[in-house]
């Protein structure tokens, strides 16, 4: 490691992965250059309508992050820039960027939009709307864009092309237009590099028989997202493009540009298309009602992620979406409006159906530019042209110090991208710890105004949310109504209240109008409260002088059919919020030192990787494992999907952990008790009879999962029937008997996707491919059969499926209602199943039957209670946010990784371990933490000392005072209090008060509502 390590990181790509990596790094003490080739960050996620499987609004959950990046003092966004070259090495790279001219001075532009109104070039396809609408030559990418600065498209601008027009310069009030702007070569010195360039969608025109680009009603899934979106070209009204009619039937064609080595030349599976098609179909039905008929044409339904299978089942049974297992040869236009699909149904009969819209579920691939850059920058790519990584270093590129996250290292969904982003941030930061903080800009908090004795001056900001709210609620009327309410000095509407420019507008309004209370009537505090509170702080107001009226979830989304009443209800909600905010008082947040150490529960691959990652960041770690050795489930596994020897790698990892001075390994140890809270946990560890109390600031739960022990298919009765783990063991021991088998059979989904365990175990299909290939390698003449329900070799794992087929493995599909039957014979096992193509029973005489058994969660109840975290319906731990906080828990200071979260292969487990460490590091690096001001307190003079609150408090925050004049009365530790209000509600003496939710504050709201 050279001496001159630089404490800054370049993150290339401003999609969700780049955003998350930047935030993690910037919050851990590093300076970040976020380089984006477009004029604003946001990437593909900004174009999505909803996100699966929860159908959250994509922009709604993303915009707080956009704004946070936009105003982070340690993130410098460099837009319109592409990497020219990467020189140097780990710790000190020199990067050359080529920045295209914006023609608008971002320091001057106030995004007023005067320029775009005057621009005469009106018919330029708008990339944000996938070309379905038009934009002007001077434009912003989308209303919530960060940075919200206009940009001129030189290919269309009349002034730049022909020296004509020039209207935008004349109307710009800030003199920000510069037609003579030029390309710039920028040089960055950075310690680490993270590549997060994302993917490009497959060009569907390549598959000509699908008529994309030749018929208006054949659209890509990206276009369909925009057609569904409230901010899209039709305002979220689903229409047939040819004539604007309401569609009656929509078809999705899967694997367009994926799993196709013929015309598409993409062997890989794009991983996300099955789920996005399901989501789009569900949303389409929500928009259009039950009259809409949706059909998804697919090969294998790949719902291998957390809660995906449930979503698939809902789509089938609740939403009545048809799933037709076939690949369609071609789309045949019948006329300008309708399209015929001929297909072979599951019974082998030809069928025809006519559709109004055909959506092509286009696959993900690396862009040509990234492939070229990788070659120039010595970054190895896989056969499918994704960035090459390894299972135990899943975000490390082939070039040291250069990390990768998101779809560039293989197609993946948002949570997995976010996990890798944190993981890459963790690795990039760990390389630079001696320079941590050296490039950081200290943030001076805005001094807080004292408004305590002022009469309330309330500002109300009512959000259109595009058409999300404004399409139903008369937003202007609500703002007008607000002005009539007591103490309201100012009320206005905003197109997107959460956008970056609106934050500045709110802050300025607070100053100009001398506001001391703010109400935002928009969406949900769950995702957006922190954002607006930060805005208030930037204007010098205490953040607790804020109230949210949720006129989206509680009004526009649920009262679509009655706009007048919806507006009336919005008025009422605003009235309640105004009444409450007037009664609110500024609150203080207690500050608390963080113990700079961690507890990792679970000594499998995830736990070990997490411990190593935290140690690499310089923090001491306690690693607790209940078994007598480290390694967990990996001790029974043979090879990773990329072919790495797991035993060798796990031994290496164990060795590194054992030799790491910062890691204290506690084997044969259980976690007996946990006290405390974020920053200051005290845990009791029990080893044998000995108990030990340790202090730690953060906790990572990495307790893994276990293999289901099957009772079906003669397992346990016939020694020829084994599980994958048992087969792996025989591979590890190189059992010569394996090669002697003449016929081997694998049965998939043993215990998975069954009523008692409805989720998919994610890893078993890939595991079967590995083992089938291993058997074929040992004995090429062996007949190998795989009996399956859907093959789910997602991403580049698809190549293993291809390889297995290439080696002659035969795949036979069965249904849940028609499972294989295994009968033991003396010389063989007779396995009978119906062939899915010939529709006739076939019997395989097998010597070996391997069962791909489910992965099931441990009983996580006790651990969950100890850390006050919950599990989902399948028994896996529930993360804080399915999409954007997959490694965080709702409980502060507790993080999650590995199979405790969901079944996953080693590479994903390691990535999440590093991600959890990164998330923990953002906390530990702060050294201090503020505790919410919304806590309860006791007025001891009113307390009767009954102890009910002490019994009730789930956080053990309430206790009796033991000394002094109030001994025997109750007290509440604000550090432990979560502000749930149970104590206040249960107090018969009215002695307990919850700050921000006190009786008068809540009662006045109720009074206003009545």
């Amino acid at each position: 490691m050279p001496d001159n390590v630089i404490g800054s990181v370049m993150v290339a790509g401003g999609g969700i992965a780049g955003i998350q990596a930047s935030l993690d790094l910037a919050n851990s003490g590093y300076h970040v250059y976020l380089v984006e080739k477009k004029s604003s960050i946001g990437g593909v996620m900004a174009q999505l309508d909803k996100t699966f499987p929860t159908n959250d609004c994509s922009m709604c959950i993303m915009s707080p992050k956009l704004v946070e990046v936009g105003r982070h003092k340690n993130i410098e966004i460099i837009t319109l820039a592409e990497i020219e070259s990467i020189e140097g090495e780990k710790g000190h790279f020199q990067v050359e960027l080529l920045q295209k001219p914006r023609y608008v001075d971002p320091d001057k532009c106030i995004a007023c939009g005067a320029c775009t109104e005057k621009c005469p070039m009106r018919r330029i396809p708008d990339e944000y709307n996938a070309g379905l609408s038009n934009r002007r030559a001077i434009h912003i990418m989308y209303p919530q864009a960060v940075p919200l600065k206009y940009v001129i498209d030189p290919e269309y601008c009349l002034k730049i092309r022909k020296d004509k027009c020039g209207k935008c310069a004349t109307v710009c009030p800030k003199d920000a237009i510069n037609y003579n702007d030029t390309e710039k070569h920028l040089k960055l010195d950075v310690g680490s590099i993270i590549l997060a360039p994302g993917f490009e969608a497959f060009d569907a025109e390549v598959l000509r028989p699908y008529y994309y680009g030749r018929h208006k009603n054949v659209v890509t899934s990206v276009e369909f997202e925009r057609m569904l979106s409230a901010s899209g070209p039709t305002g979220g009204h689903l229409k047939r493009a040819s004539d604007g009619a309401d569609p009656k039937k929509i078809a999705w064609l899967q694997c367009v540009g994926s799993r196709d080595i013929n015309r598409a030349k993409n062997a890989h599976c794009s991983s996300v298309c099955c789920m996005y098609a399901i989501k789009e179909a569900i949303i389409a039905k929500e928009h259009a009602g039950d009259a809409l008929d949706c059909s998804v044409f697919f090969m294998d339904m790949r719902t291998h992620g957390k809660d995906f299978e449930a979503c698939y089942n809902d789509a089938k049974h609740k939403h009545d979406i048809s799933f037709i297992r076939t690949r369609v040869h071609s789309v045949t236009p019948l006329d300008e409006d309708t399209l015929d699909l001929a297909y072979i149904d599951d019974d082998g009969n030809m069928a025809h159906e006519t559709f109004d819209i055909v959506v092509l579920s286009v696959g993900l691939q690396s862009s040509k530019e990234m492939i070229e850059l990788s070659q120039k920058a010595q970054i190895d790519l896989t056969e499918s042209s994704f960035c090459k990584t390894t299972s135990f270093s899943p975000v490390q590129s082939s070039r040291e110090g250069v990390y990768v996250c998101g779809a560039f290292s293989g197609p993946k969904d948002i949570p997995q991208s976010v996990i890798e982003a944190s993981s890459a941030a963790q690795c990039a930061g760990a390389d630079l710890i001696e320079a941590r903080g050296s490039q950081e800009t200290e943030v001076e908090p805005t001094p807080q105004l004292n408004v305590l004795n002022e009469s309330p001056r309330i500002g109300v900001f009512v959000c259109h949310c595009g058409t999300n709210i404004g399409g139903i609620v008369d937003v202007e009327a609500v703002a007008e109504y607000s002005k009539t309410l007591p103490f309201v000095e100012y009320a206005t509407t905003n197109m997107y209240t959460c956008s970056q420019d609106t934050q500045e507008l709110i802050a300025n309004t607070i100053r100009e109008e001398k506001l001391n209370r703010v109400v935002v009537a928009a969406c949900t505090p769950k995702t957006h409260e922190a954002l607006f509170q930060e805005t208030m702080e930037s204007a010098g107001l205490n953040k607790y002088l804020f109230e949210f009226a949720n006129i989206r979830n509680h009004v526009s989304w649920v009262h679509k059919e009655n706009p007048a009443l919806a507006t009336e209800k919005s008025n009422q909600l605003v009235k309640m919020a105004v009444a409450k905010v007037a009664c609110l008082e500024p609150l203080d947040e207690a500050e608390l030192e963080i113990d700079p150490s961690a507890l990792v529960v679970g000594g499998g691959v995830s736990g070990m990787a997490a411990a190593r990652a935290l140690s690499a960041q310089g923090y001491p770690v306690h690693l607790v494992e209940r078994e007598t050795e480290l390694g967990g489930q990996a001790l029974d596994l043979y090879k990773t999907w990329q072919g790495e020897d797991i035993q060798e790698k796990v031994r290496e990892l164990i060795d590194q952990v054992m030799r790491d001075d910062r890691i204290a390994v506690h084997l044969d140890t259980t976690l007996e008790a946990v006290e405390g809270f974020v920053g200051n946990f005290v845990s009791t560890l029990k080893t044998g009879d000995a108990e030990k109390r340790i202090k730690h600031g953060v906790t990572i739960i990495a307790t893994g999962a276990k293999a289901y022990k099957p009772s079906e298919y003669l397992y346990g009765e016939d020694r020829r029937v084994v599980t994958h783990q048992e087969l792996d063991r025989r591979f590890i021991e190189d059992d010569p008997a394996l090669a002697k088998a003449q016929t081997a059979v694998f049965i998939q989904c043993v215990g998975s996707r069954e009523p008692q365990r409805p989720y998919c175990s994610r890893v078993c299909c890939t595991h079967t491919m590995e083992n089938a290939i291993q058997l074929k390698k040992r004995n090429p003449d062996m007949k190998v059969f795989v009996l399956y329900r859907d093959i789910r070799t997602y991403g580049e794992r698809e190549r293993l499926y291809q390889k297995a087929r290439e080696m002659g493995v035969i795949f036979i599909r069965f249904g849940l209602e028609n499972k294989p039957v295994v009968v033991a014979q003396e010389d063989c096992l007779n396995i009978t199943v119906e062939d899915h193509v010939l529709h006739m029973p076939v019997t395989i005489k097998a010597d070996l039957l391997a069962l791909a058994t489910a992965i099931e969660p441990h009983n996580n109840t006790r651990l969950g209670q100890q850390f006050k975290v919950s599990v989902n319906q399948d028994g896996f731990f529930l993360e804080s946010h399915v999409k954007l906080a997959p490694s965080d828990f709702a409980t502060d200071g507790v993080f999650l990784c590995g199979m405790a979260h969901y079944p996953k292969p080693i590479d994903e487990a390691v990535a999440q371990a590093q991600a959890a460490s990164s998330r923990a590091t953002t906390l530990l690096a702060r050294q201090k933490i503020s505790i919410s001001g919304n806590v309860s307190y006791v007025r001891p003079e009113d307390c009767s000392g009954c102890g009910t609150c002490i019994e009730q408090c789930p956080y053990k925050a309430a206790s009796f005072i033991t000394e002094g004049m109030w001994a025997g009365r109750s007290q509440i530790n604000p550090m432990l209090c979560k502000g749930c209000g149970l104590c206040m509600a249960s107090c018969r003496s009215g002695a307990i008060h919850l700050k921000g939710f006190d009786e008068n504050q809540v009662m006045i709201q109720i009074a206003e509502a009545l």
Partner: protein
Amino acid sequence: MIEPSATLEIGRRKSELKSKAMAMLPEGGNLDLCFTCGTCTSGCPASGLFGMDPRKFLRMVLLGMDEEVMQSPWIWICTMCQRCISACPMKIDIPRLVFYARTQVPRDERPDGILQSCNKHIESKGGAMGIPKEDFVYVVEDVLEETQEEQPEFADMQAPIDKEGSLIMLNQNSREPVLEPEEMVPLWKILHTVGADWTYSSHFWGGENYCMFLADDQNWEAIIREQVRMADEVLGVKYYVNTECGHSFYAIWEALRKYNIPHKFEFKHIVELYAEWMKAGKLQVSSDWNKELGIKFTCQDPCQATRKSLGDYFAQCQRYVIKQCVGEENFVDMVPNSVDNYCCGGGGGTLQTNYTKERLAYGKTKFDQIAETGANYCVTPCHNCHSQIHELQDHYEGKYKTIHLWTLVCLAMGKLGPNERTYLGPDLEEVNLPASTNEGE
């Protein structure tokens, strides 16, 4: 074919057919890669015939059901049109597998019509209809003479045979000299008009190649080698030009590659030349005759010359020529078309088998496609397509007529004689007749 009640034992079966086929096919034809996704079957007009479809066929081969597969006559109704492989995500070569399966039928047990055609071709050293060389020469000379006499403007037209040092050697589909000699004339007129320096070869003059359909590699190759020898060594031509027939074109195009036959000439399809000559102004046509009439034309893109060999280029040439002749506004395309076109069902030798019912069922897709266009004429350069589409019209009582491209070109040149209009309907019986015939009246 399949007994649904029987349980098939597959665990220890050996699939001879599969392993042998894979050894024969380039890259093993990717046979093992099948997803069983159904793309092939959903795009195949032969799906369901004889209870078989391409996916089932491959599946049975992969499961080692060699006997059952070989019992099915489906391999003789599949035309090997390659629509399946063109869309197959794994690029599985089912057409070549079918070809291979045909090779596995003992030669004398293969469909007799195809077998006899191949044998006659070899024996006669002429064409598949087996007429002796003298007869071919006689017919050509006789028809030429008659035309020279009856149509004075073509008095100096030639139809040379074995003329050494010509620029072009042209093959000839047997059907015309044997069954409808007057159909040769329009093509000669075109060649005459552009001043082409061309000749027939009297040795293996027939372009059609039933040995290919018979999956008789040895004789398929032998025929092409003889033609190559004639073109290169005997006649020394620069171009070997194929008439309008599609399979004839493919039989040569593919054989040159498959058997790696060295050759000096450039191999061309006559439709390419029509387009070239028109663009160069050598072949002047006008669509004025159709301005008032507004007779609609569609066209069949033969799989053999389009999807299987020349691709969209062929389709574009053909459309250019037709539109020049009938007027852009009077051309209606089928959907889908060009390389994505459906096979008519007349290829692969099916016309020479007894599976007429299945062949017509196969062609129903094509018939519907043509009917959907509402066109009065389906221009069908390829001979097999021509016969099939003609028969489909008859069988399904369609309203269209089927014509060769030469008929249309000559019509638009104003040079199509009255007795060269066999395939035209009454609507065109007297349209744009040559000046000489008018004078004659």
